């Protein structure tokens, strides 16, 4: 059955000769690698989500044993009640898995791979074999990360930020091997990401089809390109820091150990110097793909395409000089804090451009509410909430109160789930037909969207309120504090929302899996889109294009007066179009 959904009659003759293992396992085809990343990261999304459910249960129903959790060993949840140390591990692993193994590969690994060559009209990545390696390096990294749960002392438990010295010294945390596995895993994953980014950058710069100038690139590709640059330059900082922390634990160095001359704050500086660009890595591709989808759904060109590009660049650039906003209360030099405050606030400006230009794109459109469009609109609606809550924290005096409270947790889920994950839902449902040659079921797609959108807000909106009341994050039992006891009701409500949210994702998974085998056969261009990828078969054959496509216009010529239909593909020659400029797209 599975073969029906994968390239067959249109497949390049050469691909046929490849044995199964070369074609689907150790494949060098960017489309297959994209799908491999998709399956891997959805699995990690599920695991991370499951960890969240355990966390939520503990906070929502602290007096009730977790149903079925008695199967967990005594070292985790005796009698179905989580131990505090296991709670810490769960929070750490939840954050880590979601950020590094779910959302980042979903955006960069999946769509970077799948979309870049197709959308720029290239046969494959610049380095197909390197591409394969970048996937097969990510897999052991994931295994290393998860194996933390099975070693003595448990998984890493110092938060996804792993602040030293708690993370550097097992005497303080009780975790030894788990923390080292965490660090190794991130260093290995870092290599995978760097190889991937090298590939994406080279491909976008070098392999654009004739006529695909920089300002004809779809915003999704712009975003992925800029993201790749951020990955390339930010991840090595984390790798370096992780290695130093690893040495602190294993060979007795003292980088972050104050008793030996080290600086605990140095870890935080390095981590956040990587970390803030990282959070933009987690949102920019989403922004780009949502731009494509909103233009398509509204049947209008993107409003202010050029400023959208410049806004992406501005966000990426500013992202390097704001890291200190995570450290306002850390004891960092307060004068430095002032500078970070201003630079952080300035990021609202390019973000505003993006938000209002999305709205401008919908304005006077003729909006088709297909499932990807619903997710894309929800992305805008939810990202804005997350972005605006960022302004509270950006104000350092306000951050005194809300730092390390659920206000932060609310913020980060609004940008990461409300933002990135909704963008991922939009993108998966949008490009699913191109990936698998079949359509996802629109009815169940809408059901999934509706429940998710509602349950998401029930889950995370009240967290702002918890934060405003001073509810700290990363605490196992808020009822220890008198001032938090009145909030138990809110916590229970959040947990109920979270359980529904989790449940709703099974609709998505069901739709995903069933459509793969039983879905309606997808036409080449189901959404009437202009992109180059829609001119080839769904799924595209090996090496994508029978002959190199030629690009005549920008990516978003919807409802152009030049043609009858309301879309005008980038590759269509209207006769009046001159060929691509004789010179290559300017570098």
């Amino acid at each position, binding site marked *: 059955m599975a073969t029906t959904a994968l390239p067959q009659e249109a497949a390049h003759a050469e691909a046929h000769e490849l044995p199964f293992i070369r074609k689907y396992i150790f494949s060098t085809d960017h489309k297959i690698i994209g799908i491999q990343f998709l399956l891997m990261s959805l699995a990690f999304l599920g695991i991370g989500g499951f960890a969240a459910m355990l966390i939520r249960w503990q906070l929502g129903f602290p007096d009730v044993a977790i149903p079925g959790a008695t199967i967990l060993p005594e070292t985790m949840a005796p009698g179905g009640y989580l131990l*505090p140390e296991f709670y*810490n591990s769960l929070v750490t692993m939840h954050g880590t898995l979601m950020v590094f193994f779910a959302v980042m590969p979903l955006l960069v690994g999946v769509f970077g791979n799948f979309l870049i060559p197709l959308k720029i009209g290239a046969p494959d990545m610049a380095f197909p074999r390197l591409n394969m390696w970048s996937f097969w390096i990510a897999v052991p990294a994931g295994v290393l990360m998860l194996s933390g749960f099975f070693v003595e002392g448990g998984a890493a438990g*110092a938060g996804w930020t792993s*602040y030293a*010295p*708690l993370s550097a010294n097992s005497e*303080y*945390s009780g975790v030894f091997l788990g923390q080292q596995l965490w660090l190794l895993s991130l260093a290995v994953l870092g290599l995978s990401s760097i190889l991937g980014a090298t590939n994406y950058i080279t491909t976008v710069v070098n392999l654009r089809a004739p006529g695909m100038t920089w300002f004809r690139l779809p915003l999704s590709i712009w975003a992925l390109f800029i993201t790749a640059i951020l990955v390339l330059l930010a991840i090595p900082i984390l790798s370096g820091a992780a290695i130093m922390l690893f040495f602190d634990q294993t060979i007795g160095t003292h980088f972050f150990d104050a008793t030996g001359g080290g*600086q*605990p*704050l140095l870890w935080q500086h390095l981590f956040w110097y990587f970390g803030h660009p990282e959070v933009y890595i987690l949102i920019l591709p989403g922004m780009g793909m949502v731009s494509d989808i909103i233009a398509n759904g509204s*049947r*209008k060109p993107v409003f*202010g*395409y050029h400023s959208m590009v410049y806004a992406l660049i501005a966000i990426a650039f500013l992202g390097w000089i704001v890291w200190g906003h995570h450290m306002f*209360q*850390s*004891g960092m030099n*307060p*004068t430095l804090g*002032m500078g970070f*405050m*201003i630079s952080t606030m300035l990021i*609202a400006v390019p973000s505003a*451009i993006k*938000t*209002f230009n999305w*709205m401008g794109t*919908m304005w*006077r*459109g*003729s*909006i088709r*509410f297909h499932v990807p469009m619903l997710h894309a*609109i929800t992305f805008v609606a939810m990202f*804005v*909430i997350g972005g605006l*809550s960022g*302004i*509270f924290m950006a*104000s*350092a*005096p*306000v951050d*005194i*109160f809300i730092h*390390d409270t659920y206000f932060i947790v609310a913020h980060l889920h609004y940008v990461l789930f409300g933002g990135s994950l909704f963008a991922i839902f939009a993108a998966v449902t949008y490009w699913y037909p191109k990936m698998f040659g079949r359509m996802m079921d629109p009815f169940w797609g809408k059901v999934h969207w509706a429940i998710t959108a509602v349950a998401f807000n029930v889950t995370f*909106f009240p967290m702002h*309120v918890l934060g*405003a*009341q001073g509810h700290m994050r990363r*605490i*196992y039992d*808020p009822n220890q*504090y008198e*001032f938090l006891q009145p909030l138990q009701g*809110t916590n229970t409500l959040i947990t109920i929302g979270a359980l529904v949210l989790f449940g709703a994702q099974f609709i998505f998974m069901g739709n995903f899996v069933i459509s793969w085998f039983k879905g309606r056969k997808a036409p080449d261009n189901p959404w009437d889109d202009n992109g180059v990828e829609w001119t080839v078969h769904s799924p595209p054959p090996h090496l994508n294009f029978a002959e190199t496509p030629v690009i005549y216009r920008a990516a978003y010529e*919807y*409802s*152009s007066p030049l043609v009858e239909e309301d879309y005008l593909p980038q590759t269509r020659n209207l006769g009046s179009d001159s060929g691509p400029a004789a010179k290559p797209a300017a570098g």
Partner: protein
Amino acid sequence: MGSFLDWFLPPGASTFAADIDRIYYAVLIITGIAFVIVEAGLVWFAIKYRARPGRKATYTHGSMRAEMIWTAIPAVSVVALGIWSGTVWNNIKARDSIPEGALEYAVMVSQFEWMFTYAGRDGEIGTADDFTLRNQLHVPVGRAVVLRLQSEDVIHSLFIPAFRVKQDIVPGMHMAVWFEATQTGRFEIACAELCGNGHTTMGAMTTVHSTAEFDEWVASRPATTALR
């Protein structure tokens, strides 16, 4: 239980709480406006411009003027907000913001307890009449106090919600945080930085006394071994 749409902060009980809260509410209003504009706009556009038979989208690539407007307004708002926040920040946390003559405390934290060393009768820290209490901070109302913070092991964070005080305590560094309580009563202290398995339990209590009561209380304490 407060309503889960209740965005108000709990009552403040220190001199600068009001300054912080004022910015918080200002941000709430600014972002509230932006929030309503965006969300209402999205819903409105979604309804008004939904595809119907015969409807054709307007072919436009944007408007420089509109973009200027929605770039400039947020830019001005955030810069103003930044400058205002900056002054308040400096008053609270700048290294020279600690008021003259503030009452000194030495605080040594470790997993998972707070050791508060008091200046004793002579009002000076490091003298023989100092005394140390575990998890109990007593301060006088209406007088600035400064806590000199040090950690023995990992990073902890002193959080007194009612005073709008939060300061991480990094091992190997000397931190100071000050505040001036405006109300008598008991206010909880929490540790706000994940510091290990007992992080949740690392609470303590501040008691704010009237000046007379505080002096009397101090006088009644026997000296204990001072902290370093």
